[in-house]
């Protein structure tokens, strides 16, 4: 009898354990979340499982580096009424068999000619090249512009920046002298590349950003911040930021951004800290208590990724991506600093909370501040006339997301 009772208790405990297994306390009300959920439209032909490295736009075309390089036309007035007319994604032919790319930028060296560059690597890792894409006809095979060949050489992420003196295409380059010998190479015409003095390091650069008004340039590595207050090429070489932003070891920097609205340089790290500094880098503001995923005890610290500044009505809203928890809103770029705090995106009327984006890493942002305006677009809440900007969020293995941002109504995310 006693034995049977014990078995009964064990079965009950097992059932309860099965129900509870793998569960955690919800940061939102379960019924509340269900009640406010809005459908996520998937209105484009892009694979939802791709890993997005970078995105850019040139002319009327978007380009997406996600293993293959994809492109599509921006949306056309009236096209949303007819699914068949919606611009769909197509592939740019890879320049070699099994060549892949995760980095693409648009550079306008002259102010009148937007050019698109992507860095490709061969599958065996031996060949790395920067290629130029024909914007007018992306179906053409890309043209090589800069290369390294050999097992000790590599090219990493590429960046576009305007330091106010020149417009630069900057390339992470490995293999000048010894193993793990990284430096930046720059080009102001897309044809000739040369090392940027003072950038030799034992790790690649995560980001390079510049303020064209002050000519300040910030070079970011995982463990170091270099600053240069007189442009990339002119004057003194970049040097370690002084004062230093105050990275807590073993944290690592993950992203940098210069925001022209608030006139601040921003940094993010993987241990819940944000940093901001005005041009000149005289002082860094840093949140001293790491941001966490929630207010609960022992909630994980947010690992930030990179920033985005999204025009939203009269404001520009700063967003910062996270690793595994979607993104956070910093707030009005005009007034925000690193200590302003971050908040989860508003969920009322939005489909964000129930989207895979909310539990994904945001690995790449792209904002199209000036899409064609005043045309009808289809959102989760039906067809709307749109005059705002469009923000894209790229994720690893969860594809590319698109949202329409204006000064009224909640953000609705759509899948590309």
């Amino acid at each position: 009898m006693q034995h049977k009772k014990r078995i009964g208790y064990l079965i009950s405990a097992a059932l309860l354990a099965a129900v509870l297994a793998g569960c955690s306390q919800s940061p939102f009300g379960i019924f509340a979340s269900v009640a406010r959920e809005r459908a996520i439209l998937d209105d484009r032909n892009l694979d939802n499982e791709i890993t997005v490295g970078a995105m850019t736009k040139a002319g009327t075309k978007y380009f997406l580096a996600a293993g293959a390089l994809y492109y599509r036309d921006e949306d056309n007035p009236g096209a949303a009424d007819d699914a068949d007319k919606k611009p769909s994604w197509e592939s740019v032919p890879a320049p070699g068999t099994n060549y892949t790319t995760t980095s693409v930028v648009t550079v306008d060296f002259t102010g009148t000619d937007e050019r698109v560059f992507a860095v490709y690597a061969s599958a065996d890792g031996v060949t790395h090249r920067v290629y130029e894409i024909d914007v007018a006809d992306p179906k053409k095979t890309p043209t090589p512009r800069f290369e390294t060949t050999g097992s000790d050489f590599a090219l990493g992420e590429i960046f576009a920046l305007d330091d106010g003196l020149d417009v630069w295409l900057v390339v992470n380059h490995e293999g000048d002298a010894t193993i793990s010998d990284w430096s930046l190479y720059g080009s102001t015409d897309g044809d000739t590349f040369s090392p940027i003095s003072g950038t030799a390091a034992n790790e690649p650069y995560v980001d390079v950003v510049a303020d064209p008004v002050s000519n300040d340039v910030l070079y970011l590595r995982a463990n170091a911040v270099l600053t240069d207050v007189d442009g990339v090429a002119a004057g003194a070489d970049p040097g370690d930021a002084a004062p230093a932003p105050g990275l807590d070891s073993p944290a690592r920097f993950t992203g940098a951004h210069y925001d022209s609205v608030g006139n601040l340089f921003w940094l993010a790290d993987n241990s819940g800290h944000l940093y901001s500094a005005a041009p000149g880098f005289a002082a860094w503001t840093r949140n001293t208590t790491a941001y966490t995923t929630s207010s609960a005890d022992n909630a994980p610290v947010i690992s930030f990724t990179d920033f985005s500044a999204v025009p939203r009505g009269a404001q520009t809203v700063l967003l910062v991506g996270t690793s595994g928890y979607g993104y956070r809103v910093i707030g009005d770029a005009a007034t925000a600093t690193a200590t302003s705090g971050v908040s989860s995106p508003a969920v009322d009327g939005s489909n964000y909370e129930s989207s895979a984006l909310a539990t994904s890493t945001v690995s790449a942002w792209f904002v199209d501040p000036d899409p064609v305006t005043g045309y009808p677009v289809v959102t989760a809440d039906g067809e709307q006339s749109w005059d705002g900007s469009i923000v894209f969020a790229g994720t690893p293995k969860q594809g590319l997301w698109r949202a329409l941002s204006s000064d009224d109504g909640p953000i609705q995310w759509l899948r590309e």
Partner: protein
Amino acid sequence: MTKKHIRRVALALLLAVTTAAFAQQAEDEEIFVPTNSLGDQTLGINLGPFIPLFIAGGGEVVPWGNLTLGGVGSLAWGSYITNEFKLGVELGGSFSFTPNRRALFIVPLVVNASYIFQAYPFDFPVSVGLGTSFSRIDEYLKVDPFVKAGGSFFWNYSTQWAFGANLNYWFIPQIYTDNSEAGADETRLGNFLELTFSALYHF
């Protein structure tokens, strides 16, 4: 005794025997109505559609709870206290989907009390249940109070087996406090309907 008298007596006897025989047959065919008593038990299995009614709270009432029609099932054990009154325990599970195909699972564990109106071979139990429910979506779980009330219809196929249907209303107050991670303004009242078909075994 004349022949006439003999005929009359024989007719009377025949009539008496026939009447007795018919009476016995009628007695043999009287309907047997089984009764339940303390200690008699039942085990039932229920399956059917799960109908979200509405989710209320946060200043709004969301029709159908923003959920699809789903499915529900349960296993129920009961024990008669009297012929008309039964207490039991029921473990159920339901699923339905959100607009983005997220699955909402609700697993109620309920103590049931039923009063059974009987019109053999049919039973009409009226039940209330109190318990706990486990609501789960994605990797998140919430444990809530659970109330159900409803009625059933059963046809007693034999003394052991009965088949029927249940219609139950589920009320789940999903309460969050200010101290919870979600916050008090995430409190909602879930209202659902369970329509199940049952097989009930008496033992």
